[in-house]
């Protein structure tokens, strides 16, 4: 009963927030609505008994990703209204509905078969966080380390791309500009 009420309430709130995030013409409204929607999505994870995933959702999405977007928006002109593509609306809505239904079919067809057994079943009498930890650090250790290396690569590339004067070798600059900048730097170092 309470599960159903919570599900419908948060489903409505999430859909409304993401709809605002997609349709508004103000970038700040979109950012705020997206952050609210992320927090509402973590409610589904709590309902589903995946407490650790819910906490990670709040920390990573609403904390890290949204803060990153907020800092990134300082670089852009966000007060101006956003222009949109004015394509055929029926084609857009029809195509996206079709694609989403296809995705669900792809996910749901294997579930229809009867002989599904859990590969890593949940342990009885153990909390979700402990269970996740046990599976993550035994069966999924290699993907975990690969994800860590990927995050390191992303961090370094973010620093290099957004940092000052660290973009000397970007392909968008012409060769003459790069040599000029290098020469300037050499002069500064020598003097």
């Amino acid at each position, binding site marked *: 009963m309470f599960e159903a009420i919570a599900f419908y309430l948060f489903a409505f709130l999430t859909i409304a927030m*993401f709809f605002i995030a997609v349709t508004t013409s103000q970038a700040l409204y979109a950012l705020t609505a997206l952050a609210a*929607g992320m927090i509402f999505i973590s409610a589904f994870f709590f309902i589903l008994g995946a407490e650790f995933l819910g906490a990670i959702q709040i920390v990573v999405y609403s904390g890290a990703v949204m803060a990153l977007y907020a800092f990134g928006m300082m670089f852009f002109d966000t007060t101006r209204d956003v222009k949109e593509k004015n394509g055929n609306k029926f084609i857009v809505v029809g195509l996206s509905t079709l694609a989403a239904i296809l995705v669900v079919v792809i996910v749901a067809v294997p579930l229809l078969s009867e002989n599904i057994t859990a590969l890593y079943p949940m342990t009885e009498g153990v909390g979700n966080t402990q269970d996740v930890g046990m599976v993550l650090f035994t069966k999924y250790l290699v993907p975990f380390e690969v*994800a860590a290396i990927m995050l390191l690569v992303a961090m370094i590339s973010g620093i290099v791309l957004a940092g000052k004067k660290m973009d000397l070798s970007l392909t968008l600059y012409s060769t003459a500009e790069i040599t000029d900048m290098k020469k300037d730097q050499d002069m500064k170092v020598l003097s």
Partner: protein
Amino acid sequence: MMEIGLNHYLVLSTILFTIGLVGVMRRKNLLLLFFATEILLNSVNIAFAAISHYYGDLTGQMFAFFVIAIAASEVAVGLGLLIVWHKRHGTIDLDSMSSMKG
């Protein structure tokens, strides 16, 4: 109606995925395009967590973790590229990015 099953969550995931796809198709500003991709990733996470719960299997939650990690690194790299492009051209509209056009 009152019993929430796996199909409820899959339908919700579909609706959110559709909203994200509409966003990807109609947004021209690259920052808002990134918002739409975040919606796509989140809707898939809901489906993963629901399947994980209703089949008693932790694999779905594991995949949701890796999806979150990928989303975080995507944001870092994408925003860095966006900042460089904005410094260089003063706009982040998709129409301005045609320097590789033949």
